[in-house]
């Protein structure tokens, strides 16, 4: 085994460990704001995993969308709605049993699917210059879904204007 792949594996385990730890902290922190911050850590870990898979575009988009937009929205909502000093809450409410059941079923389902899928090894055929390729594909093969999504986002933006005007 050569040195680069050993280093790559070590880095992978480190990143995976940090991702899992922050994911675990997300669901165990009793302070909602802290949980939100731990979620940011999880997103960063996932972005780092994308980087290790040489999917730079996905990594950057992960940071931009999940941290720059979604996590910020979550933290913003927490800061707007929670009392600052009494933000310690219990992690468990009356629905915990049903939630645990649903999660268990979901986990089992995904686990079985992952086991059954015949994973294709690309055999080193990785697109080095992914951005032009992705751009071309979005504007030719996948034009319709791309345009539908952009119209949806534009509608949301215009909707925000309308609500703000009132």
């Amino acid at each position, binding site marked *: 085994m*050569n*040195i*680069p792949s050993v280093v790559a594996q070590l880095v992978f385990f480190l990143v995976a460990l940090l991702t899992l730890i922050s994911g675990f902290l997300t669901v165990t922190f009793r*302070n909602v*704001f*802290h949980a939100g*911050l731990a979620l*940011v850590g999880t997103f960063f870990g996932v972005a780092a995993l994308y980087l290790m898979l040489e999917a*730079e*575009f996905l990594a*950057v*988009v992960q*940071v*931009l969308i999940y*941290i*720059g*937009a979604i*996590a*910020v929205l979550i*933290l*913003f909502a927490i*800061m*707007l709605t929670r009392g*600052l*000093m009494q933000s310690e809450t219990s992690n468990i409410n009356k629905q915990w049993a049903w939630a645990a059941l649903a999660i268990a079923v979901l986990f089992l389902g995904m686990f079985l699917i992952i086991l059954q899928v015949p994973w294709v090894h690309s055999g080193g055929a990785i697109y080095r*210059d992914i*951005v032009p390729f992705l751009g071309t594909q979005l504007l030719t093969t996948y034009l319709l879904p791309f345009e539908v999504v952009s119209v949806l986002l534009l509608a949301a*933006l215009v909707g*925000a*204007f309308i609500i*703000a005007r009132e």
Partner: protein
Amino acid sequence: MDIWSFITNPFVSISQLINNVITSILTSLGVPADITRIVVFLIMAIITITILLLLAPGMMMYMTWLERKLVARMQDRLGPNRVGPFGLLQPIADMIKFLTKEDIVPEGVDGPVHLLAPIVVVIPVILSFAVIQFGVGLGAVDLNLALLYLVALGSVATIGVFMAGFGSHNKFALIGGMRAAAQIISYEIPQVLALSIPVLLAGSISLTGIVQAQSGLFGLGWFIFYIPVGPIAFLVYLIAATAEVNRVPFDLPEAESELVAGYHTEYSGMKFGLFYLAEFLNTFLISAIAATVFFGGWQGPFVAQVPVLGIVYFFGKTILLITVQLWFRGTLPRIRVDQLMNFGWKRLVPISLALVLFTAATLWAYRFVMLALKSLGG
């Protein structure tokens, strides 16, 4: 390597020289080729990172000097003039003062969040320096996603501002943090839309690609000259970016007269220094991005013959744009929150959307006409 090419392109030449020397030393020691490559790569990376980490605080220190001097002149004062000639050593004295100040952490703060906030604010800014092209071939990384990378990192800083506002457990800090976040989110949209104009014109989101697309007209084919979209996109970008880094006239998150110091009220010593560092580095960064995507980056006359001129052009343009922002600070009053939101959502966003549509339509029409002419000619 001849002397002329060394003089006209010293930095790239020195880096190649170091690279060759290390490679030949390792090869003569009998180190295998693949390990040599890794070691050389690591050493070059460490050198580059060190230069960037020294450049960033150095720029920041002299930007504070420039700001104090310029604003003082605008207000008919002299500014710092006691430490060194023209007060040039003042930033160094200030830095020593920052480093030796006591770090006071109030009792009621949320320990880890309060501690991490300044770090989370500074790291994205310093990471952004990795993709800036300071001259011909003088960028740490030539990322083909550079612009997207910069936008993504810019959005991460919001988290740090939130952490500072929330972790301080102080109402001024909280209000400042909320204002900052609302402002950053609102002005990110026109900022990114304005940045997409040069992307459309250049057909690339790599900073190198965008700079190279502006090489026409004797090194003056800058996108700012693409009337009318260039100047409008630049103005939209400048306004939105100024708002995003919370500078005057958009400094509501740290409005001294209302909020003490906004989200960094509860910080002292070097932690406050880090917020200050991030603010100035952000100013440098937005000026550098604007210089790169609208003013041709290192492009200019004679760059092809004398590559070292690229550094002069890049820093000249960047410092000029920084000066424009300092000029804002010296002249404009702070705007109100409702004005801020109205201006962002009802003026900048529609303008930038229309701009993107117009640019794309024009480019399409231009290509269509060119194709038609070509088929007629052939």
